[in-house]
């Protein structure tokens, strides 16, 4: 069974763009964070609401 309606023209676009775009060094860490005590993009659902509070308290 196929999941999602991924179309052939979308896959063709991906293939073409992959050939014409180069990659850059990746930076992991704070610049990637949506949460300021988790280093990544936390979606753990632990209930602490820490991700929600990210970058919005003026720190």
């Amino acid at each position: 069974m196929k999941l999602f309606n991924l179309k052939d023209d979308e896959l063709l676009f991906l293939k073409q763009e992959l050939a014409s775009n180069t990659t850059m060094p990746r930076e992991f860490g704070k610049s990637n964070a949506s949460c300021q005590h988790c280093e990544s993009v936390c979606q753990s659902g632990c209930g602490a609401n820490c991700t929600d509070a990210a970058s919005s308290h003026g720190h």
Partner: protein
Amino acid sequence: MSNLRKTIMLTLTEACNLNCVYCYEHNKTSKEMSKDIAFKIIEEALQKGDTAVEINFHGGEPFLKFDLMRETAEYFWGKYNPENRYVFFASTNGTLLTEEIKKWLSDHKKHFWCGLSFDGTEAMQNKNRSNSADNIDLNFFVKTWPKQGIKMTVSRITLPDIAEGTIFLHKKGFQVNNNLAYGLDWNDDACIKIISEQLEKLMDFYLDNPDITPASILSLNVEWFTRDDKEKPHRFCGAGRYMRCFDTAGKEYPCHFFMDINWSGKKSESFDADMEILKGEDCLLDPFCKNCEIKLVCPTCYGYNFVATGDPAKRDRNLCILTKIQAAACAIFALRRIKRDGKLTINGKDIPIGNALQGINSVLNNEFFSNDERLKNFKLMN
């Protein structure tokens, strides 16, 4: 350590006035934290001189102890200027806010934030969270803290309505942080089909409404999808390092999942050693995940892993399948945005297109699913 915010979480009470269908706190009691313990923990944290401290009131339901929250906040605001230094935060079900409490919160909204849990439409909220929708003033929360997202947990009974619930909350003005509840068995074909259909609907909504920030369930950073098994995963969560949690007696844990309120039975002999590991630098990669394309961004929860498997690193396999489907949806969604806009922004960050395309490509192949026995009947392309 980088200069990330430090969070200290205080469990003010183990009691809660709701009984949500997915609640992981199976051993709630009437235990409460005393004022002396709360003051001591906060005093020590603030005396360390950190410049970004979040003091997080948790429960149970912390608004059962609103008087203590108010007294604590007002005491420390009088003693230490909170400006650019610390903030109070309460995770709440939102049902206990009287007009007097709302007034106090409005007056202090800059230095006291609330994060509301609300599970989609009112009907979804009522199914998951004890028929509580009528007791919650959504407008108060979005008006008081407009940048604060709302936490929407998805249970099996609300799974067929993820898109409708998320869109409902967006239309109320919220950013939406949605997640699949822990501790449930999601491993059947019906769940797989339903969540993929729901995420497809949600993608369509965001593509039609580009000014709305997509919910967290469609915001995995595709830049970090990779088939390269040499790249070392980052520590996913800051529990134990940037976050410390205290139970009602003042005992410290890396996060609230490790507290007795979540446990039944005897803790393993390695419990104390595991708590120390969480304070260190180990990335805690589950060997099972070594070759997984999404291991760098998979939202694993060390606390829940410990509750479910006895090992903070060992992933609860129940969520693997749906997380893979979520990743496939994020990849397709990212591809469609790049195709339409020529650029991609995730969580406010512009993603280099080449990196994003590499990540998308690592997931959008049928091997991503066929490597998992439970997903072998499903594919992403013809």
